[in-house]
């Protein structure tokens, strides 16, 4: 942990969850990737009649999900989503996790094999406070909600809203909406969003039909190709 912090609203807060829930059609089938203790999916189930599923790696969080009666899968998102059949979900949620994934584009493509739409929340490392910290102090960014020294951080990628838009142009999906989160609100349009937003919610949609070979996970494809 680091003493030098910049105060920014917690992106895993109930506020962010409210913003996500607002974008999900009641009654949908939803998977939350990196769901933590399954608070968000339990709310989607109880208040919105959603059929939910949680994916989480951490042991303690996983058990908390079981206690909430949420169906859970323990797996590392870096190893793909082979346990999830193609087109089995209406929505996938990936909140504040993409920056921790080894190969974000592979995971996003994999997400659109299993889900029609995705709600992805990413931190914005181009926020002006972070820019100042890097420029003035010459130190790697450490913030309230990403309070890790560079050598112990689970965040392996540092991206901005501009960077994410560029990534999104390369996958089998497209950006339906970009909602910068400024303070406690997701705003439809903001001046200088890439400077002011601490994170952003992206509503993404599958752009290409799922082909039969998409039934295979990346690992299975590698195996199939090598046989």
């Amino acid at each position, binding site marked *: 942990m680091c003493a030098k912090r910049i105060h920014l609203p917690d992106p895993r807060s109930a506020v962010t969850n409210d913003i996500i829930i607002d974008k999900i059609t009641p009654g949908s*089938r939803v998977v939350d990737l990196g769901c933590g203790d399954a608070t968000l999916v339990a709310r989607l189930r109880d208040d919105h009649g959603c059929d939910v*599923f949680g994916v989480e790696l951490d042991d303690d969080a996983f*058990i908390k999900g*079981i*206690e909430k009666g949420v169906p*859970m*899968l*323990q797996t590392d998102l870096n190893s793909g989503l082979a346990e*999830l*059949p193609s087109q089995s979900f209406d929505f996938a949620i990936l909140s504040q996790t993409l920056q921790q994934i080894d190969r974000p584009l592979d995971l996003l493509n994999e997400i659109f094999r299993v889900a029609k739409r995705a709600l992805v929340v990413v931190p914005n490392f181009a926020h002006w406070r972070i820019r100042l910290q890097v420029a003035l102090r010459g130190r790697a960014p450490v913030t309230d909600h990403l309070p890790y020294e560079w050598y112990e951080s689970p965040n392996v990628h540092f991206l901005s809203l501009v960077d994410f838009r560029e990534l999104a142009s390369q996958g089998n999906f497209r950006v339906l909406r970009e909602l910068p989160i400024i303070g406690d609100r997701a705003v439809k349009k903001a001046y200088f969003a890439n400077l002011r937003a601490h994170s952003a919610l992206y509503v993404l949609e599958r752009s290409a039909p799922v082909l039969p070979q998409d039934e295979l996970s990346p690992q299975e494809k590698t195996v199939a190709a090598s046989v």
Partner: protein
Amino acid sequence: MSTDFAETDSSSSSPDGFVERQSATLFAPPSPLVLESGETLGPITVAYQTYGTLSPRKDNVIYICHALTGDAHVAGRHNEKERKPGWWNGFIGPGKAIDTNRYFVVCSNILGGCQGTTGPSSENPQTGKPYGPDFPFITIRDIVNVHNALLDHLGIENVLAVVGGSLGGMQVLEWVVNRPERVGAAIVLASGPKLNAQGIAFNAVGRRAIYSDPLFQDGWYYGEEEKPHFGLALARMVAHITYLSEQSIELKFGRKLQNGDEFGFDLKSETEFQIESYLHYQGNRFVERFDANSYLTLTRAMDYFDLGEAYGSIADAFSRVQSRFLVISYDTDWLYPTPQSKEIVRALVDAKRHVTFKELKSAYGHDAFLIDQELPKLGSLVSPFLARTYSDRQ
């Protein structure tokens, strides 16, 4: 035939705290069990044990399905002289992962077994002699049909959960697909929708060992002075290797010698290494409690089980289930490796069913779900899963 179990006997624990083996006679004439093969069998005696107290609403029942060579004695002791308690004593009991202060646990010996339930060593009522090789071919579905008949007999409509590992897990899978209306939750441990070819191969070696025992006499050895112990012990030795992992054998035995520190340079010595001695011990102990014909019968039932084949596909099979699932595999299990559990999970997600899955890390291989040191990890998942299922059904 149904009796109101709650009124007659709500717990089998005797006043001194010991558990008693009970038995029920089912499928008496004129209504024998029609087996999957088309043959009929009856009457069938079923040995079972119960723990805890059946709730007034009869909604706290947990049915334990045992693995290949297990029995109804799942926990507790029959008397003070009994050295070892039941096979899952570390897991089932007051305050344990399956808490008998809360739940009413039932475990029965399986059809085709030899520990109190009708099997090849039981008397054939038509001849007055043991069935022997005349015992009909049975399948996992037949075994599960007997479990269900026992529930009927006990006057229990629905179970909160069925729990089983290995062959017991296969019974759980068959049960939830065959009688979906009866089961609230299914807990499948170290199991799969079918045995892979490697598993069938090991079973084949075990059966060949039994067939080639000169004392086996095509299965007609009952009443003989000496039973066919050699082949059965060998079958157990082979099977036992599949229950362990490379890591656990290495940790426990390594290349340590049994007697002294030096090689004996004696080919006749069958127990030079400690692992050899251990396997011989396991084999010898096994023949004291198990019947060769039962071993043949049950390994065949295990080989034949194929959930996807029987119902079109596994996802089709699961489209009929209503239960929620907890599926657990062990990373060092090579008899029922993790991908087999994942196949179940994929099919359940495909069928839009409630499933929770975790691969546990363990050095102990397939046997991990029975090893005391591994039970806390298992319990940390099973206990909240059962508690939540129970409260959701209130």
